[in-house]
């Protein structure tokens, strides 16, 4: 667009500073300005994401306070080992993403592609385990809606569980827990799916050598996004899986 109109000054300025950056956009005075604007924009976007998830967290905290017993009982249905493994997988994936940013900065193309692939693989591993957990909920009829089944919470002994039985109306409230569980982890998973899509695009570009000449902004900014998705999970895991799992001791 801008190149259609020759702008001698901007062209000159560009030749002065970085001949090697075809990605430099002409409306920025310098490549530094472009890079700073990009990462600032990404941080702001993450801020909007915090507000977005914030609404869900708020709803969760509210209902957890209101329907404490139901939420605790329902929370006991989640598998801590699977959640913990997934946490480890996601953190490792984030670690490889950080390495990918480093590889781009030191301009090591093959290493960058390798780290992006590892990040992607671990992302898929996370989603795979998550899908398995979802499937288990499906089999137990713990997906909210018409087929939701509360009998396991009303009569846990019949299912071989040592839970405190819930009254039928209190047991209905477990449905709220599972709705919020699916809404929160589902929204998180959706962010992962979008992230994986972007990762493929970054891999293609990295393979093409786009990030081998000092232009690392897309890798860096995607790294911020990927770490943000990690951090959301770091909050989801304790809130959904861990807090007060067995308050029946007293």
């Amino acid at each position: 667009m801008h190149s259609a109109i020759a702008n001698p000054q901007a062209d000159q300025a560009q030749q002065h500073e970085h001949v090697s950056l075809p990605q430099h956009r002409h409306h920025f005075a310098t490549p530094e300005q472009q890079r700073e604007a990009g990462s600032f924009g990404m941080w702001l976007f993450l801020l909007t994401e915090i507000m977005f998830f914030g609404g869900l967290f708020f709803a969760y905290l509210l209902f957890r306070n209101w329907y404490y017993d139901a939420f605790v009982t329902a929370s006991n249905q989640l598998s801590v080992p699977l959640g913990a493994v997934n946490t480890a997988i996601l953190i490792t994936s984030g670690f490889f993403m950080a390495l990918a940013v480093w590889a781009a900065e030191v301009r090591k193309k093959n290493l960058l592609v390798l780290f992006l692939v590892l990040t992607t693989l671990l992302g898929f591993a996370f989603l795979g385990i998550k899908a398995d957990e979802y499937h288990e909920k499906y089999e137990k009829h713990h997906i909210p809606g018409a087929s939701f089944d509360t009998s396991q919470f009303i009569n846990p002994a019949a299912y071989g569980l040592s839970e405190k039985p819930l009254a039928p109306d209190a047991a209905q409230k477990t449905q709220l827990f599972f709705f919020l569980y699916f809404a929160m982890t589902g929204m998180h998973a959706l962010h992962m799916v979008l992230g994986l899509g972007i990762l493929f695009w970054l891999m293609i570009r990295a393979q093409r050598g786009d990030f081998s000449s000092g232009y690392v902004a897309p890798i860096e900014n995607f790294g911020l996004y990927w770490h943000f998705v990690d951090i959301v999970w770091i909050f989801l895991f304790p809130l959904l899986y861990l807090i007060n799992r067995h308050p029946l001791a007293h």
Partner: protein
Amino acid sequence: MSAPSNTILNLPDQSTAQLPRRNFINAEHGLLSWLFTSDHKRIAILYLISITFFFFIGGAFAGLIRLELLTPQPDLVSSDTYNKFFTMHGIIMIFLFLVPSVPATLGNFLIPMMIGARDLAFPKINLLSWYLYVIGGTLTLTALVLGGVDTGWTFTAPLSTHYLNTHVITTAFAIFVAGFSSVFTGLNFIVTIHRMRCPGMTWFRMPLFVWAHYAASILMVLGTPVLAIAMILIVLERLVGIGVFDPTKGGDPLLFQHLFWFYSHPAVYIMILPGMGVISEVVSTFSRKRIFGYTAVAFSSVAIALFGFFVWEHHMFIMGVSNYSALIFSLLTMLVAVPSAIKIFNWCFTLQMGSITFETPMLYAFGFMGLFTIGGLTGVFLGSLGMDIQLTETYFIVAHFHFVMVGGMLMAFLAGVHFWWPKMTGRMYPESLSKLAAVVTFIGFILTFMPQFVLGYLGMPRRYHAYPPEFQVLNVLSTAGATILGIGYLMPMIYLAWSLKYGAIAGNNPWQATGLEWQTQSPPLTENFTEIPIMDHEAYDYDWLEHKTADEVTHVA
């Protein structure tokens, strides 16, 4: 700054002005060059066309509402259809007109020019924002064509989630998408204002228009995602049938109210702040004075943005919230009146001893100041706990809201469109006709909404299509006023279109205004400036402008 002097009393002779040979409008040709542009000025024009389209659709529904209310009996449409009318009017006017009105058109066009940049920081995201707006608008129209939606623009749960069988999902999704268009606009503005200012353009040299947009952008970025999640929960609740908001299933309808108003109260500041920015520019230019208390006006924008986040519960005083929190939110609501008053007072002091001229933008600005003050003061009525219980859900609140949004924001929008029309198109609008339009709009507005204050005070509830016969006189007045108001809005539409071809050539700076956007050709180049300007003076420095112009004249001679 030295004592303000009344530098220029006469506007420059425009008879010698010529349209620049090369500008952003003729830089490229063809529809595709517009649809795939990344030029902020072209995107602003795209936005201007699309929001005008939606404004007239929303206005048509307003007309239908007023037509039904002409008589006490429900004789034009059934109550269900009436519900759909006011819902569509509200959704279109708020989400598709008021929220993007000034920021996406004037802000998009002017912010880069005002701070001496070539474009916004993220031109492609800017274009994406327009496409999201169009998709959101199309989805809204789809819902309308398929049979409409009748939740009211507030989507009150569990009404919207369990008791209605209209196109709630489509509409909620439309608002979700349009919301992201707003997030991207705000994000772009914040980054641009932080990172793209030209040399010498310090924060306190920026025009107040930019400050106002900065404050509004904070609200867009922080508030809109919460609306997005509220809409998603509404959609999920309808699809899955589980009740986060449904009290029969243990859900909490107040939770929806909290999430919704956490956005929708700040949203009224998203709508009004950019308008206040326009008024600052117009008042300064047509009184030939630096804005009185520049710093106070700048910070009052940010203060409105901050306080605006902590008053949302005043929409919920009658909904069973605790008395103590209602008390606190009532106090906080009073607090937000302070920065708004700072602005009004400072504009008045700017006018004092200024050499005021009454061009069309200034007429609209006067309209804004009067009507916004009335709207703001009646807002204090509604923020007081006792009065609110009497007045809420009556026509009083309808009148209050329209005084602020239509009397305030729409006046500011029209002031801005007229003020920058020469800059955007290179041509002047017809001055006397547009003055007439400004006066017609003002008269029509007062006639439409003043009676509604009385109606509300007498107890006529909002959102009903029938009313007791004793209210008819006031309703007829209101409907008559709406007709005049409609004419007042059609007039600019027609003569502005006419001026595109036949208007007088404007020249670079027809108003002798000080902003950087006026120091370049009209319409501007695609790259805005041939070389990046250096800001070597304060904002609104008319002495600087006079000397600059004097220099230029010597050059020519």
